[in-house]
């Protein structure tokens, strides 16, 4: 009846963002054998996250989208504290999370891509959900808390599931158990890494609807990592598109997904299959390699604007190939990292 977003939309005058990610860098170094090291070979460094800044307001849903290898999962893991950035800071309610990771973990929880792997096959549903309570030694009746969490996650009546093992449940039910395990600690924020991509298509909607309901009922803030822009359209307030370790476009979902301002976002949207979809431009080549990040704008080798010659005509080609750039505000709350913006052009 009421606009479900009315009471949770962030107001700009509210206290600062709930989560702040400031220019984090996460790199992975390959291994070098002793012999190779002696002759001067350097280990390959993969810059999975190469300068990402984000903000999440309380109660909003931000979708982090991109292809595989773009760094979105690594960013999510850094936000969860599972990966320590080489540079940069992550602040929750103004405090760096690495000051007290344990306390942070009570407020921010994660939902994983593979619900089967995320549950210990030797533990019952009850024990998997209760684990968080035991780790943090939460006071109160454990049984009631577990039952409430399972119930919130849509498994009713909860007692029926207590003694089940993961292999006795369906994919959708397992994911609900993982969600219950996250809810039992009454977190303020949930980081969901591809929460439905391993589930059957008809089941996905229910799990997404569950996340939306939890956001409404419990005021949760959600960071959702996905490669599926359709999913972002269904559930996200804002969308951040990542490419090779950077955010290349970020803004409200309606803006980014309908009027994209970055050529990569546009290419991703064009490629979504639909009726009569033949003849759209498709980017050539494979998703690129984080060990070999191109000079200048990291998207320029695959950019259709460059390939079609339009960049040259507009006079920005030199900078595209040579000068790296950061996010600039293209419209209200809509930031893009592309030289087209300052010319006021659309991709």
């Amino acid at each position, binding site marked *: 009846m009421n606009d*479900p*977003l009315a009471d949770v939309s962030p107001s700009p005058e509210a206290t600062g963002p709930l989560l702040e990610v400031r220019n984090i860098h996460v790199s992975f170094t390959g291994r070098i054998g002793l012999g190779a090291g002696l002759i001067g070979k350097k280990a390959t460094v993969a810059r999975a996250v190469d300068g990402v800044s984000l903000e999440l307001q309380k109660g909003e849903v931000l979708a982090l989208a991109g*292809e*595989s290898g773009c760094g979105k999962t690594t960013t999510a893991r850094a936000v969860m504290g599972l990966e320590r950035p080489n540079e940069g800071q992550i602040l929750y309610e103004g405090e760096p999370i690495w000051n007290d990771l344990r306390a942070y973990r009570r407020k921010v929880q994660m939902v994983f891509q593979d619900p089967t792997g995320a549950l210990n096959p030797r533990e019952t549903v009850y024990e998997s959900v209760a684990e968080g309570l035991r780790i943090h030694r939460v006071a109160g009746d454990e049984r009631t808390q577990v039952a409430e969490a399972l119930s919130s996650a849509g498994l009713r009546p909860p007692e029926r599931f207590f003694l089940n093992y993961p292999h006795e449940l*369906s*994919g*959708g*039910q397992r994911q609900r158990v993982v969600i219950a395990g996250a809810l039992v600690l009454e977190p303020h924020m949930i980081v969901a890494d591809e929460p439905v991509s391993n589930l*059957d*298509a*008809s*089941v*996905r*909607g*229910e*799990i*997404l*609807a569950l996340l*939306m309901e939890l956001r409404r009922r419990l005021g949760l803030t959600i960071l959702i990592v996905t*490669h599926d*822009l*359709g999913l972002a*359209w*269904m*559930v996200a307030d804002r969308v951040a598109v990542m490419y090779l370790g950077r955010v290349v476009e970020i803004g409200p*979902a*309606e803006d980014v*997904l*309908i009027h994209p301002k970055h050529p990569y976002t546009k*290419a*991703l*949207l064009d*490629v*979504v*299959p*639909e*009726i*009569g*979809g*033949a003849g*759209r431009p*498709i*980017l*050539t080549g*494979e*998703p690129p390699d984080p060990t070999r990040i191109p000079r200048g704008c990291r998207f320029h080798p695959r950019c259709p604007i460059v390939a079609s010659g339009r960049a040259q005509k507009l006079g920005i080609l030199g900078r595209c190939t040579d000068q790296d750039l950061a996010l600039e505000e293209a419209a209200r709350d809509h930031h893009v990292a592309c030289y087209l913006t300052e010319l006021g052009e659309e991709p």
Partner: protein
Amino acid sequence: MSLLSVKDLHVTYRTQAGAVPAVRGVGIELSRGEVLGLAGESGCGKSTIAGAILRLLPKGTDVTGQVMLDNQNVLELKPGRLRAVRWTEASIVFQGAMHALNPVQRIGDQIAEPIVLHGQAGEREALVRAGSLLEQVGLPARRLKDYPHELSGGQRQRVMIAMALACNPRLIIADEPTTALDVMVQAQVLRLLKELQRELGLAMIFITHDLSVLVETCDRLAVMYAGRVIEEGPADVVFRQPAHPYTRALSAAFPEIGDARFRMRPSGLPGDPPYPADLPTGCTFHPRCPQVFAPCSHVDPPLFDVSPERRAACLLFDGAPATVNAAGGTVAKEDQPPAEEQR
């Protein structure tokens, strides 16, 4: 000019837990050069059909019905003739194709293998043909010498397609060929499949759970649920105006970006796709159906015409010929009491 004609196919696996009916009476008609999409989720039987057409299912599986491939019943062929038919008449691009390559054999040899096995050419000629096949799928011929691990996921998928084309089949069955690929690579592979299909006049059966992919590549669409086809018709019609409630729910899982009806409104089906060993009575979809009404729990509708070019298996539509009740006996529609009284 029917290339493939499957009639009343039933496939039952024999497992430790008993008989599992994976496919329960499926019929498919495919003409030369036609592309049919087979959509459905896990447990619906679509991959089983792919295996059944070429008799690649595990030993002991019960397969009954008719699979007429170019006027030969595949299910009754002798082993020698069956081997000759496999790959030369119809080939498969497997699910998880990226792992279906032999890691210690060069890809050139792997593509050439079926050519040599079917006696179509000697080894050297086969390699030359493999090279031209690679070019056809968009890879340079010099990569014949590479090993699978030197290729990316998308490239390996292209190699699988090249292998499927090796013996010039007339039918290709593609079982989830683009699952697990990035959207961009998926688009490339789909485009490649379409081009090849057009150029070579291939018939294709495209199996996937992603309805939106099918609507782009297929002429006709058949949606499967619990071992049966529950809706069938021209691809764009089925996608735009789904008749069966399941098809509607499935297409809602792949919303059109920009369509305000889907904004902030994810909806799916309660419950899970049924286990083939444990099917509900009546219409197998009824426990999850948003439009379920009284007879659905004990009447199992067959596939029938709901419009000139479309068939669906749903009691919401009039015109079901004789319907079958849960006990297996036939009940003429006129004999059924009106829906409201059937509590």
